């Protein structure tokens, strides 16, 4: 039996420092010597209190911002500007309201000049995966919040990204829709095997989705803890909740999250 070749990490951050504000005195350190890596095909959740810098990490990988020091590598190559190999799904769907669902989803390949004959079948596939194959001609304002987020998902996924960066993508949805979306996400992920970095503050969500959970500290942000999530795929929310290990793990993680949250609140107390 062949041993699985150790694939190089998809994404590697090393020694990342980032501060906001000018002047040495008033600068706020957001990220303090962060190092992490994401293996190919992993789904990693980043948990932490507000303002701890989770979004900043995502922005650095996406190429929206630059670190003050340290390296951000994608497949060994440094990242400097946004691109379709690092897809992003924001908390708000940020669809283009003047484009139909299909045109939104196919935005990436169309900008790249890809021929319709090549991207249309892929678009059909992703639309089917997110369950919107009958809504191609619809306009964003005709869709519910959950449907729009599904379009955003398909849009980010269509260009076949190396990594999908998701910044609390289901935070604005109601609880039922959120559950549906989480299921949807894991289904599509299991089909495509894309590496995913998923930011959330919801511990249950992290436990349902992630292979690994990274917990960040309050500002200045560091990786405080890392947990491997042992539950086998496919995960059913009802089965999970019944699992005794679930509660134990959740308590551990929640404890750290809450500790950091309290620190973060104290730090910002008037």
């Amino acid at each position: 039996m062949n041993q699985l070749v150790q694939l190089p990490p998809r994404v590697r951050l090393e020694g990342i420092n980032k501060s906001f504000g000018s002047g040495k005195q008033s600068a706020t350190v957001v990220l303090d010597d962060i190092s992490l890596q994401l293996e190919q095909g992993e789904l990693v959740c980043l948990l932490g209190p507000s303002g701890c810098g989770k979004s900043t990490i995502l922005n650095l990988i996406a190429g929206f911002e630059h670190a003050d020091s340290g390296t951000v590598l994608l497949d060994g190559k440094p990242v400097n500007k946004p691109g379709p190999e690092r897809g992003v799904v924001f908390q708000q769907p940020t669809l283009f309201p003047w484009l139909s669902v299909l045109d939104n989803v196919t935005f990436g390949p169309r900008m790249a000049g890809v021929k319709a004959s090549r991207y249309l079948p892929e678009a059909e596939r992703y639309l089917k995966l997110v369950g919107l194959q009958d809504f191609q001609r619809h306009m964003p304002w005709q869709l519910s919040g959950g449907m729009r987020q599904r379009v955003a998902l398909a849009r980010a996924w269509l260009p076949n990204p190396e990594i999908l960066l998701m910044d609390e993508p289901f935070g604005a949805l109601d609880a039922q829709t959120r559950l549906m979306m989480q299921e949807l996400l894991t289904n599509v992920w299991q089909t495509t095997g894309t590496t995913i970095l998923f930011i959330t503050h919801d511990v249950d969500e992290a436990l349902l989705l992630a292979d690994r959970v990274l917990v960040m500290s309050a500002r200045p942000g560091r990786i405080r803890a890392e947990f491997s999530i042992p539950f086998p795929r496919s995960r059913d929310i009802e089965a999970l909740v019944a699992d005794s290990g679930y509660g134990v793990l959740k308590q551990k993680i929640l404890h750290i999250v809450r500790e950091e949250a309290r620190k973060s609140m104290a730090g910002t107390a008037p």
Partner: protein
Amino acid sequence: MNAVQRVAISTSAVALVLAIWQLSGSLHWIDPLLLPPPSEVLRTTVDLLTNGYRQVSLWQHIWISVLRASVAFVAAIVVGIPVGLAMGLSPLVSAVLEPFVQFLRPLPKIALIPLTVVWFGIDEGSKFFLIFISCFLSVIVSAAAAAAMVSKNRLRAAQTLGANRYQLFTRVVFPNALPEIFTGVRLSIGIGWTSLIAAELVAANSGLGWMVMNAGTYLRTDVVMLGILLLGGIGYLFDLALVLLQRTLVPWAGRDT
């Protein structure tokens, strides 16, 4: 209140005002010279439709004013939108143009008349200029505001999908700005239309604005009244046309995701 009720109430309000206006003339509460009642305005309308005003038919006066204004509007929009967008997107362009725009915009265009006569003479040039300048400045400001308010995340979404700078502008910034630009254009055209009178003060001998001014010099308040009603009505129609255009071209306005 549903749509039918609304129309009914609006119509009644207008009818009431018309009735009071007519009475004030018939019963001489107000000197009919100062405020000709609707009956007299109607008489004058028939007269002008038959005989024209100063040997030029009423339709021609209307047509000339509409033409003058339309040409100036189109020019103001075609030039103003790109300039405004550039101002909204480029801090350099904005820094250069902003002082001039902000100074000229609130200036009453009537104050420019003596200069426009000297620069452009008494022909259509001066009239075009006055309408153009008032419309143009307003379009610039709207377009600049529209360009500046593209949401950061929408731009970022486009960037991660691989749009280059040119595509970012044409495929994201521009469509995103369209609803706001349309609103600005509607406003600007309203402003431009009201400048029509100022424009036609400059040595015209036809056009609705001129008709109002010339009739005024002879105290033909009946013609002035008719002219004012026409000017208001046509301005309203312009706006209506733009609203319809907006609904067709920018259906997502106000329903933004």
